[in-house]
Structure formats: structure tokens, C-alpha cells
């Protein structure tokens, strides 16, 4: 007997009717979403249930989708059932202005530093985390660098000529208005920086 994706989906929809949504199976891994208040309930259900047994947290990361208003920051959990060898992906999303999500450290000690990293990069506030402070960046940093509005390079540099790198100036990358050319732009059209490189707030 193998634990199939349909069976997991069925158990989840029985337990949380109408609240788990967005069932997909990209490349064979079942993916679903739930409202952020239920994240611990869903994780506990997946952990404790004798049939589902998702007792290994593979990964926890964040994603920033600036175009989904009110659901910009997404936290993605990858769980693994080691005995039946089934993986599952679970997403919760939150508003960027109030990014509070309950911490999973009570259940998985592995989530401790992974949540700190998500906080460091995206600013997601994990409620109840024992030690939520920056882990990879300098403690004095005042912005969350992986968000899409911030550029890759250090914006306080003065020795780099932006014109040569296709940014700013009178011509080049930042001045087109064609939507298709911004397919891979990190800077969204309406969230452009001002001349000093800091985002306009």
C-alpha cells in the first residue's frame, strides 16, 4: 500500500473542510495552501496522524510575490514522510504589512534557524519564536534584502557607475515602459528607487 497524493488530499479536506485550498501536483509533489492561522493545526495533524506521519521537516523558506495584494509573503514548508517516502509542500501566506505567522519550533527544532533566516530575508515575524533575530546579515541592517523591491548590489556604493550597468541614467534598463522587458526585473515598475538607491517610502 502506498500513501498516494489523492489519499492525503482526501484526509486533509475531511479534517479541514473549505480551509485547505489550492491543491496542485507540480512534478509529482502535492502542494496545498491554508490560512496562516491554521498552520500549526495542519502541521500537527500531519505529524500526529498515524497514517500520514509527516515527521521530518525538510525545508522552510519564504517567497515574496509583490503582485498578490494582501498575500505578498508566502512561507513554504516542505515535509517528508520517511517511512512511506512521500513528500508534501504546504504554503501559508500573509500580508506584508502584518506578517505574523505562528512558529513551528515547538514541533520541529529544525525550524528554529530556518525561521530566523526567513525573518532575516523577508521580515516575516514568527510569533512565539525563542530567538527571532537576524542570522545571516549584520544585525544593524534595517531592511529585508530578499524582498523584490531591493536591488542585489549594495546601494550605498559610490564607486560604481550605474549607467554602465544598465541602471538609471538617461537611457537603458530602468527607463523602458514596455511590460515584457520587465519580465525578469527585480524592481517593479511602481516601486522604483529614487536616485540614492533607497526605495521611495
Amino acid at each position, binding site marked *: 500500500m502506498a500513501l498516494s497524493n489523492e489519499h492525503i488530499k482526501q484526509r486533509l479536506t475531511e479534517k479541514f473542510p473549505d480551509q485547505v485550498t489550492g491543491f496542485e501536483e507540480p512534478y509529482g509533489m502535492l502542494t496545498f495552501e491554508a490560512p496562516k492561522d491554521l498552520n500549526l493545526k495542519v502541521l500537527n495533524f500531519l505529524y500526529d496522524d498515524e497514517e500520514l506521519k509527516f515527521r521530518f521537516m525538510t525545508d522552510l523558506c519564504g517567497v515574496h510575490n509583490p503582485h498578490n495584494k494582501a498575500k505578498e509573503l508566502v512561507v513554504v514548508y516542505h515535509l517528508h514522510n520517511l517511512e512511506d517516502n512521500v513528500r508534501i509542500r504546504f504554503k501559508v501566506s500573509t500580508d506584508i504589512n502584518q506578517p505574523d505567522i505562528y512558529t513551528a519550533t515547538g514541533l520541529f527544532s529544525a525550524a528554529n534557524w530556518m525561521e530566523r533566516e526567513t525573518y532575516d530575508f523577508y521580515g516575516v515575524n514568527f510569533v512565539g519564536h525563542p530567538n527571532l533575530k537576524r542570522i*545571516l*546579515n*549584520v544585525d544593524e541592517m534595517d531592511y529585508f*534584502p530578499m524582498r523584490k523591491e*531591493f*536591488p*542585489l*548590489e*549594495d*546601494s550605498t*556604493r559610490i564607486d560604481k557607475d550605474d549607467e554602465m550597468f544598465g541602471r538609471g541614467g538617461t537611457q537603458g534598463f530602468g527607463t523602458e515602459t514596455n511590460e515584457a522587458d520587465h519580465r525578469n526585473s527585480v524592481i517593479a515598475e511602481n516601486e522604483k528607487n529614487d536616485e540614492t538607491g533607497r526605495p521611495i517610502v
Partner: protein
Amino acid sequence: MSRPVSYNLIKKPLVDDISIAEMPAGQQGEGFFATKLNDVIGLARKNSIWPLPFATSCCGIEFMATMGSHYDLARFGSERVGFSPRQCDLLMVMGTIAKKMGPVVKQVYLQMAEPRWVIAVGACACSGGIFDSYSVLQGIDQVIPVDVYVPGCPPRPEAIIDGVMRIQDLVGKESLRRRNGQQYKGLLESYGIQ
């Protein structure tokens, strides 16, 4: 234990078992040898450099290979690598220095006693390398003065040895008064080092 065959197919015969450093130019007579103090001290210093390997990332592994028996760095007098800055002459910064690490590099540099030299090994230490990002220091010469830059990602052990040989040239020819002179003090001032 059998050893892997060396890459070079053309074998060069070994001329001498021991290689001796070149004598500096000077006047020689019976029982005396007159030369510049500078040259003698330079000769002694350059063949006995004690490096401090400040190995942060991938270049550190190439340094380990350089210290290994294949590309032996000990031949150049660097048998004893120290980890205490108070006892070392050459700070070898190998690997990416992030902005978080910058103050640490500066602190280690300040703890070294004169005369001290710095070699930046690898593209990341020279100029930030391939990591032009918000968290990487674009070259350690933003925080400390550097004498020799060794490019490469990571540089081959032969290149690291070449860098050490350039440092040896600098050490051998350095004037004894350089560290007290105006130009050097000006250099340190520009880095904010007293």
C-alpha cells in the same frame, strides 16, 4: 606508499640537494663581508615568513593543497603557519570577506606587529569576486592596505606560491625606514588606522 605520478612528463634533473639563497651584493675579504644592513635583514626576513592563513572559504581549501606535500609552501620558509596575529608576518586573506567579517579582518590586522604584509588571495579578497551583492565587501582593500593581489577563483596553488614569491621580493627589498616614514603613515591614516 605509492605516490601518484607527477603531471610533468619531462623530468628535470635535480642539480643540488639543498638550494641556498643568493648572497646580497657586497664587498668580501678574508674573514669579513660588507654589505648593506637592508639587504641582510631583507634576506633573513624573506626566507622565513610566518604566514597567518585567514581562510574563509574555497580559497582556503586551495591553501590547504598548497601547504600539502604536493605544492609544499614550507620550502619557502613558511613551515610554521601561525594563528596568532601577534606572532605572524604575513596576513594571507583567502576567501570572501563579508561586511560582517570586515571589522574582524581589521582587528586581526591591527593586532599584527610591524613589519607586516598582506596578501589578498582569490578574486573575492581582491575585489569582491563574483559576489557583487549587498553583503560582500568588494575587496579587502576597503578596510586594510594590501601588498600583493593574487587573482583566481580559486587561484591554483602555483599562483598562490607565485604571490608568496612576490611578497618575498617586496620583503627583501624593503627599506628599514619605510614603516616610520611619512608615506606609510599616510597610507595607514587613509584607512583610519593609527
